[in-house]
């Protein structure tokens, strides 16, 4: 093999996972990790949690320390994004003008923010929360603000609303759908989450669209809803979702469909180009259609599969998806893929502080969503991995030991 080795585009969780696993597996050639942002690779989940609340500093946010990359001979290129790829020459070009050769290329380009496209959306005081710089901007805006409007009732919007409410701001969350977490959790979990936020004083405008950001001297002063209501505010946090970043993949003609299409080994439509993490779409044994996941678990574990493929190891990517979110002191955990389920049953009391929702599709367990029930979550992951389905009546019976549904 030549000196070019593996070049990884994107230094988020997926990119770092690929680099680390290659070294753990004793890959012998060069490993290069390219990031668009300055500095060492950092963790993203704390941006809307510990980092936003000021509990963690920058050093604590890092994925690995500088010594780790040095000791493992992982070359880092920071603040210099890739602008073009030449698949036939196996070379790529960086913004700085430098070019790099590669034997195998890994796309770990993550997601691109959906921007708010209404009048006033570019005003000062309208912030997003995807990277460290934006988290810094939000942190400093929070200090001088008294009121905040959050647009979007997904995980980022809700975790942001929690941090803002805990910091003492008056928070109103506007969501286009009439339910929170519309694409990503069952109704009992969505309703529990809403009640928890309401107890903290967060106000909701559900099933409402935003029409305009009102400004004074190009600073946000309010949000006008389509129904005419104006919410006065000092700060707007926008969390209306992300899209897989497929720009580079599409520029070289790789097969994409709202995500870079990869097979169960993580290989794209070009045999020397692989992909992992938020930017991908793939078939998973737990689900009938190709899926796209936005989670740490998928970034890390698909990254591991890509490294294994690069080392010539056989196998498929079949890790059970899971996800977590902090809502105040409560833990929301999801195992599996709830897409297209036809039955939900509840273990525990959905009006209490602790319960789990078991989701079935054609009598097969496909997902379990847990509030403050970590043991249910861990057992759900084992059940899903084993392809085991406790009967719905058993799942709801508190006397039934979920472990007994596991194959022995």
């Amino acid at each position: 093999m030549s000196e070019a080795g593996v070049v990884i585009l994107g230094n988020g969780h997926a990119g770092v996972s690929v680099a680390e696993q290659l070294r753990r597996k004793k890959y012998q050639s060069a490993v290069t990790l390219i990031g668009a942002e300055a500095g060492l690779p950092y963790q993203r989940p704390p941006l809307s949690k510990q980092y936003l609340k000021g509990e963690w500093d920058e050093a604590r946010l890092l994925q690995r320390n500088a010594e780790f990359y040095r000791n493992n001979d992982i070359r880092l290129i920071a603040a210099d994004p890739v602008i073009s790829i030449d698949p036939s020459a196996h070379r790529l070009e960086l913004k700085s003008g430098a070019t790099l050769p590669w034997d195998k290329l890994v796309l770990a380009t993550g997601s691109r923010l959906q921007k708010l496209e209404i009048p006033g959306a570019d005003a000062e005081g309208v912030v997003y929360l995807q990277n460290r710089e934006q988290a810094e901007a939000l942190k400093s805006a929070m200090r001088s603000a008294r009121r905040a409007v959050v647009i979007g009732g997904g995980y980022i919007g809700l975790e942001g609303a929690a941090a803002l409410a805990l910091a003492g701001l008056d928070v109103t969350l506007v969501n286009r759908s009439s339910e929170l977490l519309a694409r990503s959790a069952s109704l009992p979990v969505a309703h529990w989450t809403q009640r928890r936020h309401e107890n903290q004083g967060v106000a909701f405008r559900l099933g409402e669209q935003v029409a305009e950001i009102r400004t004074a001297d190009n600073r946000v002063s309010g949000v006008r809803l389509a129904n005419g209501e104006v919410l006065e505010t000092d700060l707007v946090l926008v969390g209306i979702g992300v899209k897989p970043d497929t720009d580079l993949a599409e520029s070289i003609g790789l097969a994409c469909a709202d995500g870079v299409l990869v097979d169960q080994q993580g290989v794209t439509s070009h045999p020397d180009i692989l992909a992992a993490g938020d930017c991908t779409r793939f078939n998973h044994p737990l689900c009938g259609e190709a899926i796209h996941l936005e989670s740490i678990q998928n970034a890390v574990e698909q990254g591991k599969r890509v490294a294994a493929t690069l080392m010539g190891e056989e196998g498929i990517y079949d890790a059970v998806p899971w996800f977590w979110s902090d809502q105040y002191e409560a833990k929301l955990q999801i195992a599996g893929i709830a897409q297209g389920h036809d039955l939900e049953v509840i273990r525990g009391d959905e009006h209490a502080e602790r319960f789990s929702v078991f989701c079935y599709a054609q009598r097969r367990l496909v997902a379990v969503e847990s509030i403050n029930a970590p043991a249910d979550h861990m057992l759900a992951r084992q059940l899903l991995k084993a392809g085991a389905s406790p009967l719905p009546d058993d799942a709801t019976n508190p006397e039934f030991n979920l472990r007994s549904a596991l194959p022995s």
Partner: protein
Amino acid sequence: MVNLIFVEPSGAEREVAAPEGWSLMEAAFQNGVDGIEAECGGSCTCATCHVYIDEKFIDRLEPMGSNEDEMLDCAAAERRDNSRLSCQIEIKAEFEGMVIQTPDTQI
């Protein structure tokens, strides 16, 4: 900084210096210690940072919470009397020289 010794599944010892206030898991994770997965980044939701704590130090740790207790029952490797989740243990100056054994498997 507090000096800690992690024993990896291979038996190799890794000396790591970490600031007070961080968790044992973070000290291991940032230095890439083998045998600690820490998939959830330290929110006590995955049980993949399970460790066995030096017997000499076990009584000096804060007692475990009910979440940690429940998660340890679901850890991949055998639970022992000195089992803890390393994300739930805040590093203190008095931990200087503590030996932390990682289990054979976390998943």
